[in-house]
C-alpha cells in the first residue's frame, strides 16, 4: 500500500458523494495515472469477500459501500430503534425534503441556512429518506427523497399528496409567498 493509496482510501471514506479520478487527482495533488493505480490497489484490498467495505465504480466516479455479504445486518442497523424522537434539525430537514424534494444536501443546506449533512445522515440511518438519483448540476450531487417508511410513520395514506397543504399552514400571505419564493430559488438553482 503506497501513501497515495491511503490518501485515496481516506478521501473516498470522508466524502459523502462518489469522487471522480480527476477530483481525487486534484485534491491529492497527484497525476491521474497514479490515482488510477491507487484505486486498483484499493479495489484489490476492498473486494467482496475480503472486506466489509468495497470500492464501487458508479456513474459519478468511485465510492465505498457496504459489502453485499453484510446487506442484511446493515438493513437491521437502519431498522433499529425508530422510537427516538426526531430532533428539530431532523424534522426541518425532513419537512424540506417532503415538501420540496428530491433535493441534494447543498440545496437543503441553502433552505435551512445551516449544514444539513448530519441531519441527512441521521434520516438515512432511520430509513426515512433515501437516495433518488443524481441532480443535473455540476458534480451531480445525490438527491434525497422520502421513503415508504416515512409515509407510514406519518400516516400519509396517499403519500406526499396527503401532506397538509402549505397554504393552509401559512394563511399569512407574506409567509406563503416567502415559501414559494424560497422554494422557487431552490428550484431555479436545480433547473
Amino acid at each position: 500500500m503506497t501513501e497515495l493509496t491511503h490518501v485515496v482510501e481516506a478521501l473516498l471514506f470522508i466524502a459523502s458523494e462518489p469522487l471522480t479520478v480527476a477530483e481525487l487527482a486534484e485534491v491529492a495533488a497527484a497525476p491521474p495515472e497514479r490515482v488510477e493505480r491507487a484505486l486498483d490497489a484499493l479495489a484489490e484490498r476492498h473486494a467482496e469477500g475480503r472486506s466489509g467495505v468495497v470500492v464501487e465504480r458508479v456513474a459519478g466516479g468511485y465510492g465505498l459501500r457496504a459489502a453485499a455479504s453484510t446487506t442484511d445486518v446493515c438493513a437491521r442497523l437502519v431498522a433499529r430503534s425508530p422510537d427516538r424522537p426526531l430532533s428539530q434539525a431532523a424534522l426541518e430537514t425532513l419537512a424540506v425534503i417532503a415538501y420540496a424534494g428530491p433535493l441534494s444536501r447543498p440545496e437543503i443546506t441553502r433552505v435551512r441556512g445551516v449544514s444539513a449533512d448530519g441531519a441527512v445522515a441521521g434520516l438515512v440511518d432511520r430509513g426515512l429518506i433515501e437516495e433518488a438519483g443524481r441532480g443535473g448540476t455540476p458534480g451531480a450531487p445525490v438527491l434525497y427523497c422520502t421513503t415508504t417508511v416515512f409515509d407510514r410513520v406519518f400516516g400519509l395514506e396517499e403519500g406526499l399528496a396527503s401532506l397538509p397543504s402549505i397554504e393552509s399552514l401559512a394563511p399569512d400571505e407574506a409567509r406563503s409567498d416567502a415559501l414559494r419564493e424560497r422554494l422557487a430559488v431552490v428550484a431555479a438553482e436545480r433547473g
Partner: protein
Amino acid sequence: MATPSVFSLELDLDLFAGPFDLLLALVLRDEVDLAEVPVAEVCVAYLERLGATSDLDLEAATEFLVLVAALVEMKSRLLIPGAEDDEPLDALEAADELAARLAEYARIRAAAAWLGDRRHDLGRRLFRVGPAPLAAPRPPDREVMSSDPAALAAAITRLLRPALAVDLSHLPRRLVPVRDFLARFRRLLDERGSFTFDDAVSGLDRMGIAVAFWALLDLYRRGEVLLAQPEAFAAIEVAAVTASFRREAVA
C-alpha cells in the same frame, strides 16, 4: 491577529504592571486599592492593543466593555460613599455574588483552555458527518411508530419565519448631542454675557446634566468661557471670555 481578550491584556501602569486578570484579582483581594486604579489608562492600553489588530471580535470587545463598566461602577461606589443609589445593593450579598461568579467563570475558562489545548494536541480529526457515499441497503418492512404530519408542517413554517431581529428595546436610546448644549450655551453668553450652570440645566435629567457639563468643559477647553465656583457644591458661574481676551489667548 484576533481581538485581544481583556484577561491577557498586559498593563504597565505606575501602580501595577502585569496582566489585567491579575489586577482584577488583586483588587478583589483588596491588595490593590481600586480607588488608585487608573481605569482610563486601562482603556487606553486596551484600545492600543485593539488598534494593532486587523479584525474586530465583537465578543472579546464586549467582554472588555462589561468588565471595565463593572470596574467603573465599583470605583464610583468607592469614591462617592453614601451617594444616593437607585437600587441600594446589599454590599455583603453583592460581594458574595461577585466572588461566586468569578470563581465559576475561572473554572469555565480553565475548561475552555483544556478544550483548546486538547484540540491543538490531537490535530484535526476528520470523519464523515454526512451519509455514506453509496446507498445503504433498504430497510426491511417493519412496524413503525407513528408520527403526526402536523409536526412536519410546523417545521416548514418555522423555516419560513424571517430571522428574529435583535431586540434592543431594553437599551434606552438617550442621545443627547454635546453640540446642542454648545450652541445653547453660546447663545446664552451672547445674550447675557454670563449665566449660572444650575439655571441653565434645571429640569434636565441626570444624563442631560452630564452632557451639559461636558459641553461646559469643552467651552472652557476652547477658551470661550471662564468658570467660577465659590465653594464645593455652590452654583457654577459661567462668564464669556471677551473677544479681545480670546484673541490674545489664541495668539
